[in-house]
């Protein structure tokens, strides 16, 4: 028996009351029809039946570009002052929750990043169950079960079933308890798995690098290096660091900005030598990071199966073809 059942007609009240716990953000449409996570003032703006947003919620934790340090001759390098507002992010699908859980592991454990941690602490995650679309494959990479949420909302026929995952979530549920009733828990939905699930799991286990696959050349020939695949990836976090002086000739600002391993400059060292000169090499680097892991994330697939990279690639590059070709090759 689930205690926290929210009837459809009470959803608006639930959403509007969330504002008491922080600034409400969720999936909504922009003027030119793009689904994005953004500030939501009333429940009417929310699109809780959305498929996927263009950028994943990582933008709340690691903005596309941010000032990390400010320099002045008097006080040297300083981090920007802390003023994080509490944000309630509503409607995060399990794949995106898995993406945040992965980023948490990278930015909050071994090498804790102060700016990330600060934002993460101010972020409340309210997950939402979803329906698979033509691009996504979360079950293949074990990212279909919700993790790391404060509250998770499971869609049922005439309402929503809410689970809490943290004290923060429990406090919200307790504060809004008047909206809930008891109801039979809805059956959990089918896992979203495809025939290549085993191939992916096996490749990760054996640290398969698909050396000699004809696909590397194919990817390299088609890739426009537009950056979309990693910008839209919930777990891509490579960043570039640059510094710019100000017109006073004294102060300066250091920024960090999302980078992409398919850009030429990603593998360059001083003097111009490039350790990943060709696009083929850069794709292999990308595969290594995405599916096999680097450093502390070694052996951990960071792909959460959201399918954004396939959807936003202008030339339709899909790294899953590596696994597919292997499966077909074996079958044939």
């Amino acid at each position, binding site marked *: 028996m689930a205690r926290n059942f929210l009837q459809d007609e009470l959803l608006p009240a639930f959403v509007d009351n969330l504002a008491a716990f922080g600034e409400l953000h969720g999936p909504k449409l922009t003027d030119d029809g793009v689904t994005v996570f953004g500030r939501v003032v009333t429940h009417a703006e929310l699109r809780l039946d959305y498929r996927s947003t263009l950028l994943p919620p990582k933008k709340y934790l690691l903005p596309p570009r941010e000032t990390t340090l400010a320099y002045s001759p008097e006080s*040297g390098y300083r*981090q920007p002052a802390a003023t994080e507002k509490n944000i309630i992010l509503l409607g995060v699908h399990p794949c995106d929750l898995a993406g945040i859980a992965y980023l948490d592991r990278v930015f909050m454990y071994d*090498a804790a*990043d102060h700016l990330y941690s600060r934002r993460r602490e101010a972020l409340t995650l309210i997950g939402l169950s979803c329906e698979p679309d033509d691009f996504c494959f979360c079950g293949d990479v074990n990212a279909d079960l919700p993790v790391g949420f404060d509250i998770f909302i499971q869609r049922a026929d005439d309402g929503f079933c809410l689970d809490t995952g943290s004290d923060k979530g429990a406090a919200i549920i307790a504060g809004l308890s008047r909206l809930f009733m008891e109801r039979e828990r809805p059956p959990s939905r089918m896992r979203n798995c495809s025939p290549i699930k085993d191939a992916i799991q096996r490749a990760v286990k054996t640290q398969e690098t698909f050396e000699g696959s004809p696909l590397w050349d194919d990817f390299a020939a088609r890739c426009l290096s537009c950056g979309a695949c990693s910008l839209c990836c919930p777990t891509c976090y490579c960043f570039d660091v640059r510094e710019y002086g100000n017109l006073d000739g004294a102060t*300066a600002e250091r920024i960090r900005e999302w980078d992409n391993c398919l850009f030429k400059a990603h593998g360059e060292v001083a*003097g111009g030598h490039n*350790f990943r000169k060709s696009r083929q090499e850069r794709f292999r*680097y990308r595969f290594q990071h995405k599916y096999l892991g680097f450093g502390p994330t070694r052996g951990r697939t960071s792909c959460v199966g959201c399918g954004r990279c396939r959807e936003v690639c202008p030339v339709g590059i899909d790294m899953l073809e590596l696994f597919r070709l292997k499966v077909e090759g074996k079958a044939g």
Partner: protein
Amino acid sequence: MMKDGKTIPIMAEIAEVRSLSGDTSLFRLRFEEEENFHFLPGQFVQLSVPSGGEVPISIAGGPSDDRSLELCARRVGHVTTMLHSMGRGEKVGVRGPFGNGFPVGEMKGKDILLLAGGLGIAPLRSLLHYILAYREDYAAVTLMYGSREPDAILFREELAELSCRRDMRLLLTVDFLTDGPPGELACNVGLLPSLLKGFDLRPADTTAAVCGPPALYRCLTSELEALGIPDRSILLSLERRMKCGVGLCSHCAVGDLFCCTDGPVFRFSDIRGIEGAL
């Protein structure tokens, strides 16, 4: 406010600039505050030049310096060009030290063979200073150092002093001779691996440490193996463009290892199978 020296640069003053060649200088930095800067040979720092940004530079000085830090920088990019325009008393920022450094404990009792190409002398100078400071812990010590031409030999006076020492061997080579006189240093002509020809060593008891331009590693590792040095005793200090130094930015991966946190010193045995490592 966090001030751990890993996230936010600590300011240091340029105490001395020593020109080593046309485009390379040794910068001695002194920390403004009473920081004791502890490091291992082979570690690196992220050096900030205000308004220019940050670059990874390996530490060139020995362990005896406490409040100061020696960095050897070639004028090759945007930040190092700015650094070279700076002089005594000007301020730079330092984060670090980062990376693993050379396994100096494990190298004890071994014959030590240092192979440096060009600017690769910087981290090996740090290692050599360390070894000479604890000389009795190590067996035979040899530095082989190759430069492009006589004018490009760095640390000439120091090398002249080292050449007089009886507790180590110094072998120099240049790729080619230029018109001018070769100078006071005895010098072979030929690529660095040519110094290994006929060199008498005890391969099983030797640890080799190599640092130089990318092309150097490929030929040297095979030469060293041919001499019988096991691949796990061949230590390579690799160069990558680390942007963060702490295993986050993901620019410096070598296979599934990060150069900044797992390296920059790697055993040849650990990276020989990795595409693009060398």
